[in-house]
């Protein structure tokens, strides 16, 4: 082996560098993929991006630090409403990145308060409080005049900046329409979020979280300050949710209470369990599954000769059964099960 190879292999072992390199590769692949797909697929990928960002955040909270949140949709709502208010007249006071940052800041503020309250609780009590939160936030939006009540707020995504359109066109030869623009934004945000989360999970803080999800009593004896670690997990997790909500507002183009039902929180939770609890790749795969599965099931149903209405009624049944089947047959989630197979192979070889 040449010295260069040795040195790069050593560098590869540095998590930060590895994550950044993976992130850059991801960004490049994304640029070409999004440029070559139809606007419909781009729209689906935009959905997957915001689900994956939120699921990544939830992985930190639930999969990593062991606090079960049934109300993550509420935090997406906060991010989405912040974005919608800023983008309502299509002329935000600051650039789009600033809007997304604002959404994150507001959501983190809310998340910190909830986190401080939740840090005193454990198990089903956190679940109960967050479930109440998931119902309370949309109904508050319904009550407050400035938030558009039941109809919600229109979200006008600003025009694609010329420099962005030109750059993408130079590289991929494809024009950027508004739908694809949100997909580019979403995936850039996704890559950045995952690089940050991956580093955090490998850091001292991450080890602390893992310790308290395994055995909080032991962790405290070992000197971990439980409350602080729990609140921090909430803050990081809600930051991701705020960003996801901001992107969701742009992808959906309207922000209204009925978009943030308990279903959304359940969807996010099932994404991280189906993909594989406690890993970012699991969150990513779970989000992909939940983005593409419903449409696949209904098209499969109609092509099997069912009427549109019947096929639509069948979709939730299939979705529920798949959730049950994964939990029964692959309790470690898709990523976990694949890993297990991989290890077994290597063990034999």
């Amino acid at each position, binding site marked *: 082996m040449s010295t260069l190879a040795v040195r790069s292999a050593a560098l590869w072992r540095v998590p930060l560098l590895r994550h950044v390199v993976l992130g850059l590769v991801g960004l490049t692949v994304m640029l070409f993929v999004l440029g070559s797909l139809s606007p419909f697929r781009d729209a689906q990928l935009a959905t997957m991006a915001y689900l994956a960002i939120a699921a990544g955040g939830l992985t930190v909270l639930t999969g990593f630090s062991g606090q079960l949140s049934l109300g993550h949709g509420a935090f997406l709502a906060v991010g989405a409403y912040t974005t919608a208010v800023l983008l309502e007249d299509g002329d935000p006071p600051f650039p789009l990145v600033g809007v997304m940052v604002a959404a994150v800041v507001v959501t983190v503020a809310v998340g910190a308060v909830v986190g401080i309250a939740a840090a005193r609780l454990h198990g089903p009590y956190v679940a109960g409080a967050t479930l109440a939160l998931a119902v309370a936030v949309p109904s508050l939006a*319904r009550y407050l005049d400035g938030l558009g009540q039941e109809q*919600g707020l229109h979200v006008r995504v600003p025009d694609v900046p010329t420099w962005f359109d030109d750059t993408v066109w130079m590289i991929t030869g494809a*024009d950027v329409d508004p739908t694809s623009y949100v997909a580019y934004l979403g995936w850039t945000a996704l890559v950045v979020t995952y690089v940050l989360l991956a580093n955090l999970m490998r850091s001292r803080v991450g080890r602390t979280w893992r310790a308290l999800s395994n055995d909080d009593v032991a962790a405290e004896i070992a000197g971990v300050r439980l409350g602080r670690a729990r609140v921090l997990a909430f803050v990081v997790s809600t930051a991701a949710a705020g960003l996801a909500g901001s992107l969701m507002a742009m992808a959906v*183009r*309207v922000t209204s209470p009925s978009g943030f039902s308990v279903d959304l929180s359940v969807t996010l939770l099932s994404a991280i369990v189906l993909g594989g609890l406690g890993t970012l790749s699991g969150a990513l795969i779970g989000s992909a599954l939940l983005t593409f599965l419903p449409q696949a099931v209904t098209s499969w149903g109609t092509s099997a000769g069912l*009427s549109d209405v019947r096929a*639509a009624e069948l*979709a939730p049944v299939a979705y529920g059964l798949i959730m049950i089947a994964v939990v029964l047959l692959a309790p470690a989630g898709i990523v976990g099960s694949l890993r297990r197979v991989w290890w077994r192979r290597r063990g034999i070889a």
Partner: protein
Amino acid sequence: MRRYRRLGAVLLVAALATSACGRDPDKRDSDKKAGDTTGVTDTSIKVGGTFPLTGVAAPGYSEIPKGIKAYFDYVNAQGGVHGRKIQWTVKDDGYNPTQTSAVTNELVLKDKVFAMLGSLGTPTHEAVVDFLNDNKVPDIFVSSGSVAWGDDPDKYPWTFGWQTDYESEGKVIGQYIADNMPDAKIGLFLQDDDFGASGEAGLRKYVDKQIVEVQKYTPGGTDVTPQVAALKASGADLVVGFNVPSYTALTQLVSLKVGYKPQWFYSNVGSDPTLVGALLANFSKGAVSNGASLLDGVMSTAYLPGVDQPDNPWVTLYQKVWDANGEGGPLTNYLVYGMSEAYTFVQALQAAGQDLTREGLVDALASDGGDFKGPTYGPFRYSDDSHLGTSGFQVVKLAGGATQPLTDVLTTDIGDADIEKYDGEPATPPSNGIPK
């Protein structure tokens, strides 16, 4: 290492080559042809719509697309429109705007439908109205009485309403009360969204000073006993409800419980006497001996014949269509609604002519739509200045499970437009059931 350098060189050359070709500045405008024929062939037209087929809003509403389908099947069986069969695709949005956005993308970008028809709901359709108009997709007959679907054709040139709007209905009810029950103390029972809010706005133009109490409910929410108790406590002797049919049944049940007997005046949406009567009739073990009789004397408005009038020629036609092409089960007012929307859509296709384009369909509706004769009691308001739907109402009273007219057909418009008597003759369907 070397391999990678070569790959880099290839990429660089490729980038230079593509950029050397230069950009066609008009590329984005190159779609502008004489007309957009997406979704249309010589033998078919693809039409799509989004409805709540699952979830809380599915009861009732999920029947509308079945009605549309049955009528299209009926038309297709007789050769279609200008030789084209209508292919109707329904997508489920579960009354969730996020889903509406996703399935509308699917219909427009993947299935490439020619037009959207009948998509249901105000918050749900808010999510896609900009997208449909930006992409110049005809957005025909939104199934909701919000004034947003047609009051500003300059903003949304591709969007058309169909049913009466809630504000006009509120005005008609308000004027009737002001003329006939000037001493009534009015309580309002409103669904907490634009349906209730628009109705209230219309009412207040005539009976603002008579209103003594306003109570709201959230659909799918909990018990409405507190709201009915508050109405009773206010001394209201006339309650106007802008609510859905299930809440008509619930308010009647709760009123029995708290011993409240005002005059009830439900908006058209909530008054379906057949549906509500059947729901109430089943509580026979309780004090409700005859469900329909509980509704006797309740007032409402009508803009379309319903299944309580089996002899109406339109209802007869729909019964025939449903028997031949439906999925079984009795004819309901939701099916009648869907078939009526489909009928008006076929009228629009006929008016757009043999060379069907998206622009042609929308132009035909704006120019000829005001003269369409169909099942609705009053005319449509379609013109270059308004894309709002029909506006003819009749104030009715329920008796023995059927509606009895109390007034002539009245027409009005949003804002300060007067309420006028409509002179037109009621239309009858053509003999083959398909508009010319």
